[in-house]
C-alpha cells in the first residue's frame, strides 16, 4: 500500500516537471529557432499536408499541386498545353479546350493562379489561371481538379496582369502587357506611340463559375504588368502596375527604362460596371473562343464570339487615375486591409507604398500632376504612404502574413525581406537560392492570410540538387514565418517555371475532392454504360467503337471489319465505380495519345490505320492483377475488302 502511494506521488511529480518543461520550450519557440527543420516539414507516411499549394507551370502551360509543408508534388493539372499523359488536348472531348481564334493552339504559358474568394476570403470553389502568350483565362474546378473553362481575351497581347479576382469573385481581370493596335491593324511598328493600346478586360464570373467578358477598358498603350484588387475599403477598385510608359517599340531593355516613374493605374471598376449597366460603352468587333467543358456530356465545346464591349476610360468620370510609381514597378500588391498598395519598383532598391485613403483625398482635392492621354495623374507625394528603404535590389512581389508584416522578393540580391506595414522598417532578410521571382503565403493576397508558411519560387537552381545536365527544374524554398525571423525549412524542385502560386488550408477543399464520376450521370454521346451496350457503327469511312473497360478486360476485345483509310473513334467508357481505378487505352501507331479514363468517364481517341493486319491495343494503367491480360485485337483489312463489322467478347457477339 505504501508503495502504491509512493508511485502515485512520483507520477504527479513527473507530470509537474513535464508541464514545466513544456512551458519553457513554448516560450523559446516564440523567440527564435527551436526544433529542427526536418521535424517541421516531415509529414509521416499516410498523413496529409496542412496546405494545398497551386504553382503555375509557366512554359509547361499547366498548374501543379503541392502539399505544404512537405513540398511533395501531388498532381499536374493540364490547362493550356496538350498532356499526352491522360489525353488532354488529344481526346475528342478535350481538343476544343485549346481552340482559339488562331485555331488549335497546343501550348500555353501559364502564370498567375488565384483562388476564388467570398468577402475577401478564399472560398475554394475554383482556381483561375492566365495564359500569357495567346491571351486566355482558365477556370479549374477544385472538386475535380480539372480545367472546366477557358476564355480567350480578344485584342490583348501578353496576358500578364491577370488572372486576379475581386473579393467576391465578381470579376477575373486580364490586362495587356504588350500594347498593340486596338483593334489589330497593319501599321508601321515605329508608329506605336499614341496608336497602340493596352486594353484591360473585366470578365464577369457567374454563380456557376461561367466566365463572360463584361467590358474592356481601352487604356493608353503602356505595358500593364501585374495587378491586384482592392479589398475592404478599397473593394471596387483594381490596381495595375505599368512599365514602358515611354511607349518604346524597340530595345525596350533600355528604352523602356528611361522614365524615373511609371504608373500604378487605379481603376474604379464599380463605376464602370454601373456605366456599362446603363448602356455605356461601345460594342466593337472581336474574335475569340469560349471553351466550356460540360461534366454531364464529358465533352468540351467551343463557341466563337464576335463582339466585345469597349469603354473609353475618359468617358467615365472618376473611373481611372494614374499614381506615379518609381522604377518600372512589377508586382502590384494590396495588403489585407486594402489600405496599402505596394509598387515593387524592380529597377530600384526601394518599395513605394501608396495609401488608398490618401488617394481618395487626392482625387477629391483634384491634386493632379497633369494627365496621360486624358487620364489624370495624381501627385506622387499626396498618395505616398511610405517607402521601404534599402530593402534589397530588384523588388518583384510582396505578400502579407495578416499580422501587419509584408514579405518582398528581391530578384537581384536574391533574398526575401520582411518589413512592417506602417513603419516601413525592414525586420528580417533571408537569402533565397537563387534569384527569387515570386513568393506565396497561403491567402497572402486576400483579407485573411494564413501566415504560417511562405514559399519562394526561384528562377535559378544551379547546384541545389543533384545535377541533371544543362536543363534543370526550378527550385522553391519553404520558410516558417510564424516567428519574428523567417526560418528556411525546406528546398524542393518545382515543375516548369512557377510564376506565382496560390495556397489554401487543406481543410477548406479536401473533403470536396471528387472520387469518381457517376456512371448513371454519364451523358456522353458515345458512352456505353454497360457491356451489353458496346458496339461498332460505320458511317462512311468513320467507324465508331463503343467500348467499355472493367477489371480486367475490354468489351469488345476482338474487332473486325475495319479497313485501311478508315478513321476509327474509340469511345472508351470506364465502368468502374471504385475510387482510384482508372483504365488506360493505347492503340499501336495512333498519331494521337493514350487515354487515361477515370471511373465513370468516357473518353475518345482517334486512330487511322495505315496497314493491313491484326493490331493490338491494351490498357496502359496497371489496373489489377490481370492488367497484363487487359488487351485486345483489331483486324484491319484492305481498303476494298468486304469484311463485315464484327465485335466480340469471349468469342460471343454482343447485342
Amino acid at each position, binding site marked *: 500500500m505504501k508503495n502504491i502511494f509512493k508511485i502515485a506521488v512520483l507520477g504527479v511529480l513527473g507530470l509537474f516537471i513535464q508541464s514545466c518543461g513544456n512551458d519553457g520550450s513554448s516560450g523559446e519557440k516564440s523567440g527564435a529557432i527551436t526544433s529542427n527543420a526536418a521535424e517541421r516539414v516531415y509529414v509521416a507516411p499516410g498523413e496529409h499536408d496542412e496546405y494545398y499549394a497551386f504553382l503555375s507551370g509557366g512554359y509547361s502551360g499547366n498548374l501543379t499541386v503541392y502539399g505544404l509543408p512537405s513540398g511533395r508534388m501531388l498532381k499536374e493539372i493540364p490547362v493550356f498545353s496538350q498532356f499526352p499523359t491522360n489525353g488532354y488536348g488529344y481526346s475528342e472531348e478535350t481538343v476544343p479546350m485549346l481552340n482559339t481564334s488562331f485555331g488549335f493552339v497546343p501550348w500555353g504559358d501559364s502564370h498567375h493562379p488565384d483562388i476564388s474568394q467570398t468577402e475577401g476570403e478564399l472560398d475554394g470553389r475554383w482556381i483561375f489561371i492566365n495564359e500569357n502568350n495567346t491571351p486566355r483565362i482558365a477556370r479549374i474546378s477544385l472538386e475535380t481538379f480539372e480545367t472546366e473553362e477557358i476564355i480567350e481575351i480578344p485584342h490583348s497581347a501578353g496576358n500578364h496582369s491577370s488572372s486576379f479576382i475581386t473579393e467576391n469573385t465578381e470579376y477575373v481581370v486580364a490586362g495587356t502587357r504588350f500594347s498593340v493596335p486596338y483593334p489589330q491593324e497593319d501599321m508601321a511598328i515605329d508608329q506605336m506611340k499614341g496608336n497602340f493600346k493596352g486594353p484591360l478586360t473585366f470578365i464577369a464570373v457567374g454563380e456557376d463559375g461561367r466566365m463572360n467578358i463584361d467590358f474592356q477598358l481601352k487604356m493608353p498603350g503602356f505595358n500593364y504588368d501585374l495587378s491586384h484588387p482592392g479589398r475592404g475599403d478599397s473593394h471596387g477598385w483594381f490596381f495595375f502596375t505599368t512599365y514602358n510608359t515611354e511607349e518604346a517599340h524597340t530595345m525596350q531593355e533600355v528604352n523602356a527604362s528611361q522614365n524615373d516613374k511609371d504608373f500604378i493605374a487605379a481603376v474604379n471598376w464599380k463605376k464602370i460596371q454601373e456605366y456599362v449597366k446603363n448602356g455605356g460603352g461601345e460594342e466593337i468587333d472581336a474574335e475569340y473562343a469560349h471553351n466550356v467543358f460540360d461534366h454531364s456530356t464529358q465533352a468540351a465545346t467551343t463557341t466563337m464570339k464576335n463582339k466585345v464591349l469597349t469603354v473609353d476610360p475618359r468617358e467615365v468620370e472618376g473611373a481611372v487615375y494614374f499614381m506615379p510609381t518609381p522604377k518600372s514597378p512589377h508586382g502590384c500588391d494590396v495588403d489585407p486591409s486594402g489600405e496599402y498598395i505596394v509598387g515593387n519598383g524592380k529597377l530600384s532598391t526601394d518599395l513605394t507604398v501608396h495609401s488608398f485613403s490618401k488617394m481618395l483625398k487626392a482625387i477629391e482635392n483634384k491634386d493632379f500632376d497633369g494627365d496621360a492621354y486624358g487620364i489624370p495623374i495624381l501627385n506622387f507625394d499626396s498618395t505616398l504612404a511610405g517607402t521601404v528603404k534599402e530593402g534589397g535590389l530588384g523588388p518583384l512581389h510582396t505578400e502579407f502574413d495578416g499580422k501587419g508584416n509584408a514579405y518582398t522578393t528581391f530578384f537581384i540580391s536574391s533574398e526575401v525581406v520582411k518589413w512592417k506595414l506602417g513603419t516601413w522598417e525592414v525586420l528580417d532578410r533571408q537569402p533565397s537560392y537563387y534569384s527569387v521571382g515570386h513568393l506565396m503565403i497561403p491567402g497572402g493576397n486576400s483579407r485573411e492570410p494564413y501566415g504560417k508558411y511562405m514559399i519562394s519560387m526561384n528562377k535559378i537552381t544551379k547546384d541545389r540538387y543533384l545535377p541533371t545536365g544543362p536543363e534543370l527544374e526550378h527550385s522553391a524554398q519553404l520558410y516558417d514565418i510564424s516567428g519574428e525571423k523567417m526560418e528556411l525549412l525546406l528546398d524542393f524542385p518545382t515543375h516548369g517555371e512557377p510564376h506565382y502560386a496560390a495556397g489554401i488550408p487543406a481543410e477548406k477543399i479536401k473533403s470536396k475532392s471528387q472520387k*469518381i464520376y457517376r456512371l448513371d450521370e454519364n451523358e456522353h454521346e458515345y458512352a456505353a454504360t454497360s457491356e451489353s451496350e458496346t458496339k461498332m457503327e460505320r458511317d462512311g469511312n468513320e467507324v465508331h467503337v463503343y467500348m467499355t473497360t*472493367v*477489371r480486367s478486360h475490354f468489351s469488345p476485345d476482338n474487332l473486325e471489319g475495319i479497313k485501311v483509310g478508315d478513321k476509327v473513334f474509340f469511345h472508351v467508357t470506364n465502368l*468502374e*465505380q*471504385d*475510387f482510384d481505378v482508372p483504365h488506360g487505352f493505347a492503340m499501336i501507331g495512333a498519331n494521337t495519345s493514350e487515354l487515361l479514363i477515370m471511373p465513370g468517364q468516357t473518353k475518345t481517341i482517334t486512330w487511322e490505320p495505315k496497314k493491313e493486319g491484326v493490331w493490338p491495343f491494351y490498357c496502359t494503367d496497371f489496373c*489489377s*492483377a*490481370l492488367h497484363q491480360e487487359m488487351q485486345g485485337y483489331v483486324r484491319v483489312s484492305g481498303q476494298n475488302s468486304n469484311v463485315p463489322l464484327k465485335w466480340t467478347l469471349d468469342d460471343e457477339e454482343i447485342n
Partner: protein
Amino acid sequence: MKNSGILMVIGSALLLGLFIYPLWNIQLEAPQYPDPLGMNIYISGIQGEEEFDIQNIDGINHYIGMKKIPTPAEMWEFNTFPLVIGGMAALGALLGILGFFKVIGPNWFLGWLILMTVLGILGMMDFNNWLSDYGTDLDPKAIMKLTDSEGNPLSYKPPLLGSQKILNFTAHSYPRAGAYLMFIGMLLTLVAWWVGKKAKGTMAK
C-alpha cells in the same frame, strides 16, 4: 401484470428496429482499401455501406470465382424474414396487451421468447449456410484457383462472427444496430416474464 405487459409490448416492438437498421455487417479491409468495403445485411436484402461497395466487392470476388452478392429477388430469405419478424413482433405485442389486461399469464411471454430464440437460431444457421455456399461454390473458370496445403480449393467464407484473414483481405463480421435492438427486445421479454411471474407470486401470497 401491468408492468410486465408493457415490457412485453416494448420488447417485441424493438424487433421492428430490424426494418430500419441492418442486422449484420461484413467489412473487407485490405491495404488497397484504407476505407474498407462493407455490406450491411438487412432482413430484406444486402446493401453496400457506401453506394458502390457491393459492385466493388463483386468486382474483386470475380477473380476467385465467387458468385455475385444476391439481390433480394434471388434469395427467399429476404421475402420471408420480414414476414417472420413482423409476425413475431405483432404476436409479442398482442401477448403483452393480453397480459396487461390479465387475460393470459406470463408463461405465454416465455413461450414467445423460446419460439423467437428457435427462429433466431434457425436464421443464423441459414445465414451461415449461405456464407459457406458463397465462400466455397466457385466458378470452375475462376481466374485465380487457390488451394490449401493439401490441394483443396480455398474457402472464402467470411466468418459468421469475428474477424478472419482471407487472402489480402481481413473480413470483419459483426452484428449491427438491428440485431442489438432485437437482443435487447428479447431480453426485455425475459424480464417481462420474470416481472410478471414475481407479481403473480406476490399476489398469491
